[in-house]
């Protein structure tokens, strides 16, 4: 039976293709014994920000971690008969990205169980909470830390970490729905903000009991070229697929770039698959270009940032609303004598600042630049505030930036109201 190429490419937005690329890389880049021992190290890592799995487990083990997490989530979506919407696509890419520095199969499952129990209690289908499910694992380091990082034996750590993970998943759906109102949908990493609040309480409890949890470590830039090539390959694949599916995709792409990107913007639903795939590819190339200009080498966290930016190319980000906030972040990093782009937190914030892209989308270029500036100077403080259990620290920071700016901007903005 002949393969219908456009239909094959459209189905599940190339996810199986991406999985095959990543999974193959885990086996061709190292020996099986290196892969196995590295993967065990990843699973045993406390995983608190910033734990670069490329340093902890090596390249092949990290790719194995990324691809298996990707596979499990793709299979879960298939099993639940979920359509590949913008939020789902963004969620899957974000999970893949953060599997480079904090997520693994071990620390994500208890959180999923917690959300499942919440859905049961609410008498709702588990699949209704799939957006929260996919983004929930940003707080998975609390599970790993309590099991492997605390000053207690494993027989205490395993039940404690699992129970806290389940409780975290249980409270997250209600909290995540509520926090959207705090920033009025102008923080794309809303769940990161909700998890930042939880993380803040976890770190407060651990601090009160004098338990040291600042256990993150250095990053590894040894695989910069491989990751650069991988990003380039994925971006070009998305762009090529977009043109194969729809030869006139450029014409259909322009309306997408006029969207504010405010939550909940599902680009696949609103503009179709081909324009969204083109946008995903362009966002990938844009991330590479920014890193190249700033001479930032790709490590685990930076790769996480690239994949997240690409994923949100289906859920609120496009070059027109992302460029101003990235520029603002860059200005902030260059002007500040306290911070430098050599610090990994600052480097990844240049990518994750795009959480506040909807501010530029709605209020324009210069307001977007200012939002980016505010974001990058608050990010180091929110990290200290939340303690590192929330991998989406930039989502936590972006929530404050949007909450500060939006009420004031709304008061200033004049919408023309014509009498009907």
């Amino acid at each position: 039976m002949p393969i219908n190429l456009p239909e094959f490419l459209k189905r599940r937005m190339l996810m199986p293709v991406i999985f095959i690329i990543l999974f193959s890389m885990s086996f061709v880049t190292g020996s099986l014994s290196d892969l196995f021992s590295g993967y065990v190290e990843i699973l045993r890592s406390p995983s608190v920000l910033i734990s670069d799995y490329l340093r902890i487990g090596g390249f092949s083990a990290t790719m194995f971690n990324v691809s298996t997490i990707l596979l499990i989530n793709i299979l879960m979506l298939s099993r639940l008969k979920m359509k590949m919407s913008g939020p789902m696509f963004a969620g899957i890419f974000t999970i893949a990205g953060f599997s480079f520095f904090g997520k693994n199969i071990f620390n994500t499952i208890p959180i999923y169980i917690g959300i499942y129990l919440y859905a049961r209690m609410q008498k709702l289908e588990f699949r209704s909470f799939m957006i929260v499910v996919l983004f929930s694992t940003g707080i998975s380091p609390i599970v790993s830390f309590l099991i492997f990082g605390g000053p207690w034996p494993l027989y205490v750590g395993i039940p404690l970490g699992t129970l806290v993970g389940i409780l975290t998943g249980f409270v997250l759906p209600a909290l995540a729905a509520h926090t959207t109102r705090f920033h009025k949908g102008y923080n794309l990493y809303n769940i990161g903000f909700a998890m930042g609040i939880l993380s803040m309480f976890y770190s407060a409890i651990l601090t009160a009991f004098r338990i040291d949890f600042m256990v993150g470590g250095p990053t590894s830039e040894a695989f910069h070229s491989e990751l650069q090539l991988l990003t380039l390959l994925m971006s070009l694949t998305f762009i090529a697929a977009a043109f194969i599916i729809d030869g006139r995709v450029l014409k259909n792409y322009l309306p997408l770039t006029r969207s504010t990107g405010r939550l909940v913007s599902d680009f696949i639903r609103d503009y179709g698959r081909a324009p969204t795939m083109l946008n995903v590819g362009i966002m990938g190339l844009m991330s590479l270009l920014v890193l190249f200009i700033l001479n930032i080498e790709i490590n685990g966290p930076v790769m996480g940032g690239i994949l997240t930016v690409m994923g949100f190319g289906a859920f609120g980000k496009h070059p027109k609303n992302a460029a101003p906030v990235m520029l603002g972040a860059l200005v902030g990093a260059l002007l500040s004598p306290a911070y430098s782009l050599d610090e990994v937190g600052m480097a990844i914030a240049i990518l994750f600042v795009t959480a506040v892209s909807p501010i530029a989308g709605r209020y324009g270029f210069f307001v977007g630049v200012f939002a980016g500036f505010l974001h990058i100077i608050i990010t180091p403080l929110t990290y200290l505030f939340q303690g590192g259990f929330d991998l989406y620290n930039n989502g936590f920071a972006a929530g404050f930036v949007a909450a500060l700016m939006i009420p004031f901007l709304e008061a200033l903005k004049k919408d023309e109201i014509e009498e009907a």
Partner: protein
Amino acid sequence: MNKREIRIVTMIVRELTLFFMMHGHKSVRMETFHEENATVFSVTVKQLDAQLIDKIRKKIDRDRDMEIETYGWELVGDIDSKSELEILGHLIDEMHVKSDAGKTHLTFVRKNRYKERKTPRF
């Protein structure tokens, strides 16, 4: 109807009111009917032009999306501009439009997709 559903319904009322008032309508008549299987919102405003009806239809008359509903429903009723109705589109199943005597009647149907919690018997 449970408390959460009541909150969603009132937020839909707020969003529709906000939308039409932002489009300059001084008179917006709205009724809600809660039936066993659905909640119906009936809106009557001064005759809408075909372009605006198309715009509303494009944003609302699409498949309901439960994942976005559970995640983004608290943003409903908080639109910032005249063109935002996307989230509402994720919460409404059907839309019907009828025009007569200088008025436009819009009907929005939200089907009951949640299982009602039964009151425990003691």
